[in-house]
């Protein structure tokens, strides 16, 4: 029989003696520490956001106002910068997935021994400073390429590679890729059909996360865009800050909230599809 005391669990043994179980206070202590760490981490991330949002929601006289957000769409250069970033983000994500999905699948299927090397190679873009990449290429690239904003996408593909490869690698590790491919092939599935009907649907979470990371990276990259002379969203924010700090903060917040909403939508769509499937299968 057990009774719960204030500081410890008291257990009555079968011979009538009492034993004191000290596990409960330790667990409570652990929970307290966990709570403290969580609050500190949340404060670390949320405090700057709170400060930024508060500033964006103030007018010049310091009063609460949506004025900065209302002005944002009509601000000079905002739309152009936003749509340029959007085009670059979509183009980069498409190129990135077209390059990395087959590569990751090939490495998993045919060259599994190369995976450690791939881990190393795909991390290189993180250790090479972006400024080194862009300055070198700008000095030697042909004019027609330098004059196109899509040159930036080439760099963004390289920059996003570590995140995308890792997402895909984790997704591919989680499924029995070889057996699925062989099952599809033995049933008459071509490579393309196997990729589209069997592998990609089972990599949905990895693909979504890779896409989201790529979009976030492109919308946040400043150095390369600035050096290449293109006014993407981060460049516009930096430039417009000198004209109106409230509006630029509003733009940054809108970008953050927009990205968050986009990710939430992707996750919600994924969950909704899973729920529909479960309903069709007659299970909760």
């Amino acid at each position, binding site marked *: 029989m057990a009774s719960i005391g204030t500081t410890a669990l008291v257990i009555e043994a079968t011979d009538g003696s009492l034993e004191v179980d000290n596990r409960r206070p330790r667990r409570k202590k652990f929970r307290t520490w966990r709570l403290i760490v969580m609050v500190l981490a949340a404060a670390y991330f949320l405090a700057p956001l709170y400060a930024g949002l508060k500033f964006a929601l103030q007018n010049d006289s310091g009063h609460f106002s949506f004025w900065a957000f209302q002005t944002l769409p009509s601000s000079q250069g905002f739309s152009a910068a936003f749509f340029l970033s959007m085009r670059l983000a979509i183009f980069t994500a498409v190129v990135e997935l077209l390059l990395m999905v087959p590569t990751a699948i090939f490495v998993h299927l045919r060259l599994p021994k190369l995976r450690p090397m791939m881990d190393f190679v795909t991390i290189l873009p993180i250790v090479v400073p972006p400024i080194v990449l862009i300055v070198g290429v700008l000095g030697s690239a042909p004019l027609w390429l330098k004059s196109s904003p899509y040159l930036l996408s080439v760099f963004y593909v390289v920059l996003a590679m570590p995140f995308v490869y890792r997402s895909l690698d984790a997704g591919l590790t989680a*499924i*029995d890729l070889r*057996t*699925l491919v*062989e*099952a*599809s*092939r*033995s*049933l*008459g*599935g*071509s490579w393309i*059909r196997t990729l589209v*009907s*069997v592998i990609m*649907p*089972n990599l*949905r979470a990895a693909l979504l996360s890779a896409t989201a990371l790529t979009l976030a990276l492109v919308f946040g990259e400043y150095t390369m865009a600035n050096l290449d002379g293109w006014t993407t969203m981060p460049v516009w924010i930096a430039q417009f800050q000198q004209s109106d700090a409230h509006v630029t903060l509003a733009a940054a917040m809108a970008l953050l909230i927009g990205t968050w909403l986009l990710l939430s939508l992707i996750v919600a769509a994924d969950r909704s599809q899973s729920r529909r*499937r*479960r309903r*069709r*299968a*007659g*299970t909760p």
Partner: protein
Amino acid sequence: MTDVRDSPPVGDSRAAAPAGATVSLENLVRSYGKVRALDGLTLSIDAGEFVAFLGPSGCGKTTALRVLAGFEQPDSGRVIVDGKDLSNVNAQKRDMGMVFQSYSLFPNMSVLDNVAFGLKMRRQSGSQRRTKAAELLELVGLGDQSVKYPHQLSGGQQQRVALARALAIEPRVLLLDEPLSALDAKVRAELRDQIRSLQQRLAITTVFVTHDQEEALSMADRVCVMSSGHIEQIASPATLYARPTTAFVAQFVGISSRVPVQMDGSEVVIFGQRCPVRTGDSAAVTGPIDALLRPEDVAIDVDPDGTGFITHKSFFGATTRLVVQVGEIPVRVDVRSDVGADLALGEHVRPRIIARDVLIAARGPLEIPSDE
């Protein structure tokens, strides 16, 4: 239940196809670095025959199956199905159904869609696909599970769906790569019977890879025992068990005890008893030899002056397996369980050979029984 063979054939080219195809593996060689996984494997399988590849890990049985399926290219040799050389035909076009060891169902598709996948690849219409897939699911007893997804099924159910999926394309050859090894004993026994009965009913040529001798012996028309990339013996299960032609087969299939003996003409002397050597065996073996004795080849008589004594007893239901220590030699003996119950550990017994002849092999190490 609907017979899948009543349904229209899958493609025009298959319209007049027989249920099963003949298969010939000719001198297949496949090496991985310095390891020869297949070392000149040659084998012929009749149409509608069920052949099991049996052997220890690394013997080449799965490589042989994968070469047959088209997932591996042999370094040399040919794969011939119904007289056609398929060595350079890729897996997609070989028209072979395969069931894998791990549950290979597509997680993103319902059970029905999984079974219909191969038909979709063959460009059958949606209604044809659904009808055929539903028939196949009925055939494996899962007609009511068609809308479920793989993760909602048990392991046994998933393998039955995989079997239905492989059969849906009406393959010329059905390949089973240890399909039962991940299942628990009861489900395994049920599925074993179901696979065998379906195979007989559909008369489909089937190649089954397993390391479980009980599965191989109970399911196959012929069992092909493999070792180091080549065939040790291929024979019916009864012949393989009763008349193994090599020491490897004798030891791998069933249980054998090694007893050092000396040749005396065409006989050997075991426990003071003269026994004929199995025909053909004595010519191949030179130097010191052992007799290989099945547990049922030996009987015992309780005798306080007997040369052996009982060291282990294992109850197997109808029979009890004893290990009788004769000098330094452990000998396994099967007795009826009612007899075994009266025998005590340490009791002295006299072993005698009751087999009509014995298999001999070059002297090998005495093994310490591990299964008792």
